[in-house]
């Protein structure tokens, strides 16, 4: 009989025994019903009705949200800030470089210090995979962690806003084919998108990249890996582009930006290979002329700005859920 290993992750971190959401760390581990419920609740926050807006304005009154960003970000941090403020919470932004924490104070020390200031929700971003999990494992039960991106691992609120946007523009996800194109290897966005699309029953998920940017055994996540973009885009309904971080490429993962655009950039010709009403998404910020041609980025097929707007609603829904304030 093999040894029974007691693994610290045998009890899920995100959900308590009563099924309540404690933290929002990754899409993996959440079920279809919960994802749909969060997306539905986000829809309420996007209402243009001012009466609804006002009633939401006090949902998190008296709560403190700390945006703890160990890695630079403007877009994500701002949408979290707006989401928190619209719900009536006090929002504190902390952009601290981990370089200073490395000099003595550990990640956990930083969090404990802030915890002592009565924060209720931490929105955490870090360039190491697993930081949000680490913090979630060490905070008292009334403190909630939202993962705003950990290394290459997960960016679950981004995936949720993508799902929200897809449902709004294309309807039922289970009837659609998807292509995720770009630096899959380093992308936390891609990993969370794949997980969400899987759970919501997407018809087909393809990932497209040169072999240097495809992680090993990616097929185990339930996707088809392709190195040819023309094949990859054939008949898909949704094209999800990823941001290419040139500074990570070291001239080895891809030889040059010119060659990358030639082989993997999304231009009008390639877009034409997809289904006639296919839409294009991008988590931003876009590198025009590197992963996407300007005319495609600005075309009516692009949902980029809609993604940003929806990001606020989705983050409001997640914060409200964590604070236990969502209407049943």
């Amino acid at each position, binding site marked *: *009989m*093999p*040894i*029974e*290993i*007691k*693994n*610290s*992750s*045998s009890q899920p*971190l995100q959900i308590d025994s009563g099924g309540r959401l404690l933290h929002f760390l990754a899409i*993996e581990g959440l079920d279809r019903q919960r994802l749909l419920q969060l997306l539905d609740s986000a829809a309420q926050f996007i209402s243009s009705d001012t009466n609804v807006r006002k009633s939401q304005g006090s949902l998190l009154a008296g709560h403190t949200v700390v945006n703890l960003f160990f890695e630079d970000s403007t877009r994500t941090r701002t949408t979290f800030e707006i989401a928190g403020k619209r719900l009536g919470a006090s929002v504190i932004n902390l952009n601290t470089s981990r370089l200073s924490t490395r000099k003595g104070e*550990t*990640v*956990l020390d930083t969090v404990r210090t802030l915890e002592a200031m009565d924060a209720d929700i931490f929105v955490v971003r*870090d360039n*190491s*995979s*697993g*930081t949000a*999990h*680490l913090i979630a494992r*060490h905070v008292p039960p009334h403190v909630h962690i939202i993962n705003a991106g*950990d*290394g*290459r*691992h*997960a960016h679950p609120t981004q995936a949720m806003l993508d799902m929200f946007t897809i449902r709004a523009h294309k309807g039922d996800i289970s009837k659609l084919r998807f292509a995720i194109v770009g630096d899959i290897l380093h992308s*936390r966005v891609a*990993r969370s998108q794949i997980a969400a699309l899987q759970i919501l029953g997407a018809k087909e998920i393809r990932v497209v990249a040169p072999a240097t940017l495809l*992680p*090993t*055994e*990616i097929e*185990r*996540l339930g996707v088809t890996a392709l190195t040819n973009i023309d094949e990859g885009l054939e008949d898909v309904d949704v094209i999800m582009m990823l941001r290419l971080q040139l500074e990570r490429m070291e001239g080895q993962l891809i030889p040059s930006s010119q060659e990358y655009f030639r082989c993997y950039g999304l231009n009008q010709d390639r877009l034409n290979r997809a289904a006639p009403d296919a839409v294009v998404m991008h988590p931003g910020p876009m590198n025009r002329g590197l992963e996407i041609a300007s005319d495609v980025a600005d075309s009516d097929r692009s949902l980029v700005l809609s993604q940003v707007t929806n990001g606020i609603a989705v983050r409001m829904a997640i914060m409200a859920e964590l604070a236990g304030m969502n209407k049943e």
Partner: protein
Amino acid sequence: MKLKIKNGQVIDPASGEDQIRDLFIAHGAIIDPHKAGHEFSADSEIDATDQIVCPGLIDLQARLREPGEEHKASMQSELAAAIKGGITSVCVPPDTNPIIDTPAMVHMIRQRGRRLEKARVYPMGALTTGLRGETLTDMATLKEAGCTVLGNGDNIIENTLVMRRAMQYASTFNLSVFLTPLDHWLRGNGCVHEGEISTRLGLPAIPEAAEVVALARDLALIETTGVRAHITQISCARSVEKIREAKARGLNVTAAVSAHHLHLSEQDIGDFDTRYHVLPPLRSLSDRDALREGVSEGVIDAICSDHQPHGLDAKLAPFSESEPGIAGLETLLSLTLQLVLDGVISLPEAISRVTFNPACILGIDVGRLSPGAPADVCIFNPSLKRKINVGDFYSQGRNSPFDDSSLAGQVTAVIVAGKVVSI
């Protein structure tokens, strides 16, 4: 001091003995039972009924953290932990601070070890000065100071010409070299096996090729130089094949595996559990099974603890920033016995992997119960299951993923050089 260990199941892999009898010890050495006879008047006796009596365990790779990292552990704490785990001899890699590349360091560590009167310590001399992989150490002098083997710790010698010359020079003085194959470039900043889990968790990965490429290079050089070499740790199926092939070709090579690689896999990492962060990384389940197969066939000669005690902070960090390693001295015996329970090998074979075989690899005269051999003995109850609690560890390192597991094998008495060492 005369000691009689009564009625135990004596297992001595060196002679193939496995029978219930009394074991006699006098003046620090094992006595021939026929010669001891009735005239043997023991000063003290140990009743070993229903227990196994075997040579004290020999651990080919344990970091004691002294000198250099006393905030993590000390020789005092770790050698006591060794004894608690039934280990009577410990080989210490040269990557201490200062590095073991001078006779003075060898003397210092040996002397400190002797004074503590716990387990024996065998310092491994550095193969290159400062472990930098550039110039050879004074190997003959290190041997004279007491090193039986030389190695370069986890610092791989990148320059193949230096490696070849180090092997040639070591073989000149009949010294074995200990090699840890890991290609620097392919390893990069990786921290887990490249496979499903690294992809799911988005962690920088170490491909198995990082080990296989380096191993293939080292084996080619071992073959041309004829040096006696030991591969300190392998982690994947392809490496088992390479060693099997090398042995079939008649190379003078042995290999070891850590006890945890025989029980754990990448799957155990779960949600970034840093206790499973080790180097080489835990690989796939099929790699683990191939390692077990290698141990059972004898392709892998020895099982080591790869003991690496850490303070709490070392593991309280994001996975890739946490420090690799498991505090393994106090679970080596149990994890080895678990292989018997799992049907991988017989009990005498399991014992040989942690006693006689490592003794041969180190070229030392312990690890056997033959008359005249130094009396290093481990007595344990094989059937008693105990719950591992890292809080009870003698080691200052509490970093063990086996915390809270029930493991077989409880050490009841340990004898070093004929003296009972208190546990």
